[in-house]
């Protein structure tokens, strides 16, 4: 690892999607960014702006057309090297109990059974699900399922934790609770993190820095450093500073949203 270098570096990333008819869609065009060690980065943008695509490329699930991803200064291609993903719809394996889901990545890494069982137990405890080790996903609430999803990603001790709108399919109350729990877990098991969301409040509340992506092709429209100290608390959400950041980000997003609206009504 290069001392003082970024934990994760994305250089000149481009991605087009071919379509059966018409011009290919340019999802990402020459995007570069850096994430510092133990930084919590949030990415926000209008829906369909390519932020999920971006995260999937960083995870190695889809190859970029151009550009490269570096973790600790080393180029990574394909999944499974130092990145752990938390998925939007939880996507637990329904045939595995909670603890077996958490063990999944360790199994693939050849960790011996007693060792990975203990590690999985520890991560289940970290996300506050003691007693639910042997429950199947269909027996757990959405919020609990996503905590298992988080434990599954953390269990492989990733260099970079990737979260793709992890709370997007939860109701507002559960979402607020999980934000606090995520921060709590993150304080205890600090990781470099990239968190994709479409909620401005969520981004400000969780992150050290926020990147606002433009509508397709994804470019960085705005980079905001969040000034709040940690641990964060609910009161920050109503502070003038919080509202000011919220307004700044909304003004940028609104422009794209309006353009999109205009495009749709005219077509």
């Amino acid at each position, binding site marked *: 690892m290069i001392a003082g270098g970024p934990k994760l570096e994305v250089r000149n990333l481009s991605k087009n999607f071919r379509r059966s008819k018409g011009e290919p869609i340019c999802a990402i065009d020459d995007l570069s960014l850096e994430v510092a060690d133990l930084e919590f980065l949030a990415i926000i943008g209008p829906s369909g702006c390519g932020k999920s695509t971006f995260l999937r490329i960083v995870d190695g699930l889809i190859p970029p057309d151009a550009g490269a991803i570096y973790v600790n200064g080393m180029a990574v291609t394909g999944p499974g090297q130092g990145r752990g993903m938390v998925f939007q719809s939880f996507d*637990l394996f329904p*045939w595995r109990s909670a603890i077996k889901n958490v063990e999944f*990545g360790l199994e693939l890494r050849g960790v011996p059974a007693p060792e990975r069982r203990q590690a999985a137990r520890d991560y289940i405890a970290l996300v506050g699900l003691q007693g639910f080790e042997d429950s199947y996903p*269909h027996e757990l609430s959405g919020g609990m399922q996503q905590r298992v999803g988080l434990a599954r990603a953390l269990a492989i001790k990733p260099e970079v934790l990737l979260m793709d709108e992890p709370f997007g399919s939860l109701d507002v109350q559960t979402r607020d609770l999980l934000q606090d729990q995520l921060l709590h877990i993150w304080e205890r098991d600090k990781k470099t993190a990239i968190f994709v969301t479409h909620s401005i409040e969520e981004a400000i509340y969780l992150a050290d820095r926020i990147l606002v992506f433009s509508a397709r092709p994804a470019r960085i429209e705005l980079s905001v450093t969040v000034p709040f100290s940690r641990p964060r608390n609910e009161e920050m959400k109503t502070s003038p500073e919080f509202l000011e950041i919220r307004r700044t980000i909304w003004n940028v997003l609104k422009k794209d949203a309006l353009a999109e609206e205009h495009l749709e009504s005219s077509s």
Partner: protein
Amino acid sequence: MVWEAIARRLPHIVLPPPSIVLVRLAQDLLSGKLVVALLGSLEALVLGLALTIVIGVPLGFALGRNRTLAEMFDPVLNALYAIPPVAFVPFLVIWFGLHLPARIALVFLMSVFEVTVAVSVGAREVNPRLIDVGRSFGARGFELTRKVVFPAALPFVFAGVRIGLVRAINGTITAELFFAAINLGAIMNEDATRFDTAGLLTVIVLLALLGLAAQAAFARLEARIVPWHLRPAA
């Protein structure tokens, strides 16, 4: 009850009432006649179905997950599927003779298509998001199949084998009637020539019971192995 009520108004040879059939069933089971025949029939059934599972399940997975293979073999499979397996009987006689190997072959032919098609549909319909999760955590190739695709498609494997099981029972009896008559098929044949309709119905009832019992046993096995499928996650 309806059967009993109707049967009582008719000569017994046209439709023997269930009371007589059940007594006969008990008699023939106790005398061992039906038990021996049943066990003989089960031999071809079990071996044929085993062959179907061993060939049909992997073939189904291959067709479901590999588009090139699917494009090559789906039309062939569908064409063969459309032919009544009994049409192959003359060939089976030439290839396998009249005894156990031929019966196994017919049981196999009658059940293998159902299993292959059901498994291939299951393998094709595996939630792509779960495959992404598998890949994200570093699973590739055979490991991805073993740890993600196979368990995800397992409910379809069960559905396929359950249909295959019913078809295999069908195939067993068909084989015992069409090739050298033996076991339950032989009893049915004899009863039919003697117009012993009660005896004939006894075998039919036994087969129905066998089908029910096999399916019930299978359902229990399924509930044990794929419990998540009964209440899928929302």
